[in-house]
């Protein structure tokens, strides 16, 4: 499960809009161009449709054999969410080592890598030279791990703390370089005068510290906001995140099996911090969306109250042979309202997948699956192919 609540809502809403377009005899993209106010999604529809080959879309049931192919699309909305009680400490130690500490936790999304990246970029070092210490509540408060808020919340204070720590290092190293601190730059592992005439290695510059360390704590609460809404520590930046996904499916009308063949996911998350990590998040979002659409279901025995499929044998998720071809198009969408301008991607990448698949299923077979998951039982019932008309309760 990812993006709790949003996926079921989008599954209904995005199918209704698709249905409305069909009722109006309009292309679903054209209808959205008329009713969707988001300029970001408009552009995402345009580039996505071109890459996906939306113009190849045909009327339902165009294939002669039992396997019908269909194309569909759906959209998502996600707030550019931030938790402002997110802080970190950056240390420069006299031995030249640099550390970042925050109680933010990495639940597998790679925030440690991003923190190293941000601090390294600011200090002219390589990411692997930064020591990242996270997940300990002794460290400054980190954001909670929900709502796809981590990157947006913790990377701006990381950059601000690094920037301020570096200013202190410049102060310390300025006499040795014979230049005012404001004329120093950090680049390629060295602290140098702006004209590059004189420089010290980062380690040599750190050795000029009078005390054992520089320590700076910065908080997202201090960052310049640009928030549309703020309640307690929760805030949303002005421009919400979009996301448009296109899916191609093959439906076997005799067995009711739906297979997702291709997904084009057009996503935005502010300024992309690490495209490879973003692509991994988008793949995860699409795969979980596909499993949600086709097979995931918690089965409770109604008479005894026990969950019957609380194991990975019976609780079904798509595996290697179900993986479609996934293409990501990343739209850079700057808001200019934080030190990194980065926003979330994990959940937004999951919202549109299931309804895009459902709309593609309709385009393939001309009937709509109004329940989840779209198992053979669901599809064959929708097609009226089950003897006695017995559908899944």
């Amino acid at each position: 499960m990812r993006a709790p609540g949003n996926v079921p809502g989008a599954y209904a809403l995005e199918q209704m809009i698709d249905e409305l377009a069909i009722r109006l005899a309009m292309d679903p993209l054209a209808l959205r161009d008329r009713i969707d106010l988001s300029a970001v999604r408009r552009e995402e529809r345009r580039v996505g449709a071109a890459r996906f080959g939306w113009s190849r879309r045909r009327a339902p049931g165009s294939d002669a054999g039992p396997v019908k192919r269909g194309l569909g699309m759906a959209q998502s909305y996600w707030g550019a969410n931030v938790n402002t009680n997110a802080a970190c400490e950056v240390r420069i130690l006299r031995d030249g080592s640099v550390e970042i500490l925050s109680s933010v936790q990495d639940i597998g999304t790679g925030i440690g890598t991003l923190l190293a990246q941000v601090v390294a970029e600011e200090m002219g070092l390589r990411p692997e030279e930064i020591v990242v210490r996270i997940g300990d509540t002794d460290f400054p408060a980190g954001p909670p791990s929900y709502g796809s808020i981590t990157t947006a919340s913790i990377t701006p204070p990381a950059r601000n703390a690094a920037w301020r720590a570096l200013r202190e290092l410049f102060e310390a190293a300025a006499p040795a370089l014979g230049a005012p601190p404001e004329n120093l730059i950090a680049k390629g592992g060295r602290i140098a005068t702006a004209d590059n005439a004189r420089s010290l290695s980062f380690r040599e510059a750190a050795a000029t510290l009078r005390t054992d360390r520089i320590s700076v704590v910065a908080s997202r609460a201090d960052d310049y906001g640009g928030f549309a809404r703020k309640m307690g520590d929760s805030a949303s930046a002005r421009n919400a995140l979009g996301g448009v996904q296109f899916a191609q499916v093959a439906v076997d009308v005799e067995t009711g099996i739906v297979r997702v063949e291709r997904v084009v996911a057009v996503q935005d998350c502010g300024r992309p911090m690490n495209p490879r990590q973003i692509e991994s998040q988008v793949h995860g979002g699409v795969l979980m969306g596909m499993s949600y659409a086709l097979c995931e279901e918690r089965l409770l025995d109604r008479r005894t109250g026990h969950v019957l499929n609380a194991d990975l044998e019976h609780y079904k998720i798509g595996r290697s042979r179900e993986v479609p071809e996934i293409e990501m198009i990343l739209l850079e969408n700057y808001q200019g309202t934080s030190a990194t301008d980065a926003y979330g991607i994990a959940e937004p990448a999951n919202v549109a997948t299931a309804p895009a698949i459902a709309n593609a299923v309709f385009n393939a077979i001309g009937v709509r699956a109004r329940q989840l998951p779209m198992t053979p039982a669901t599809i064959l019932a929708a097609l009226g192919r089950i003897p006695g008309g017995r559908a899944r309760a």
Partner: protein
Amino acid sequence: MKGFAWTSAPDLAAALRAGSATVAATMAAAPGPAAANAVILKAGGIDLLDLMKEGLLAPQRIVNLRGIPELGRIAEEPGGALRIGAMVTLAQLAGDPLIRARYGALAQAAGGSASPQIRHVATLGGNLLQRPRCWYFRSIHHDCARKGGRQCFAFMGENQYHAIFGQYGCAIVHPSTAATALVAFDASVELVGARGARRTVALENFLLGPEVDLQRENALAPGEILTAVLLPAPKPGVRSFHLRQGELDSFDWPIADVAVVLELGRDGACRRAGVVLGAAAPVPYRARGAESALAGQRIAEGTARSAAIAALAGATPLAKNAYKVPVFEALVRRAILGAAGQA
């Protein structure tokens, strides 16, 4: 999981001396002293480990059969019959050139089972003797009929993966996909008793429906070891095909699987057909209606379609598994055409 003693039998005689109990009898005796002292034979161990982790079986001693060389061989007998040792893995079956050439449906069935990792460990003997996957049977919270309880929970519960034929007091489907193909080939199993006596039983008779015995799926006797599967020599003109359909293509149990064996004459007419449905009934379900519909006919789209409809005649689906009927019809038709080389 409780602790247990482990021994590896170096040869069949040592395994027979171990005085093993069947898994079904041990589970039926639980929690009595017979169950507590049970010696259980292990092949690949896939199902055994599951049962132990599920809290359904706690053997006192496990005797490993994987180290017995004679059980691990595939050998052609004089006259062309094939003898497959019980410890031959599903991966070996799927890749064996002789099986692929002569018993294609068996290679397909074995090759499509479970996952590559499991196929490399799971044995044919263990696959045939594994206990059903019904989630009520596998749950310690449900005292179901197959475990000696009073009711089959599937009848009133979540029965989307259960049987559409032959649910006499219990709606399991037989879990072995290989068995579907083996029954279509009229295979037999070789059993060796505690005193070394060998008997050979047609697989179709060895596997027991709930109308015969609610608490065991086969006629394995205490102390007996299933040593081999015997496939009769292929008749001229025999062609076969197996199709399985899972909700997922990777690592999922089939919702339907079908094995078709056709004996085609030189004139192209079908002399004899074997049509067997897996995941349809508590035992592999021989679709006699389909078999007789094909006998004497030339195989074409129309004959295959009629045979598929005949195969499903008399199905008694439960509240949530009627969808299996059209799935099976499609698979039977396709498997017939596949066997005839017309897919």
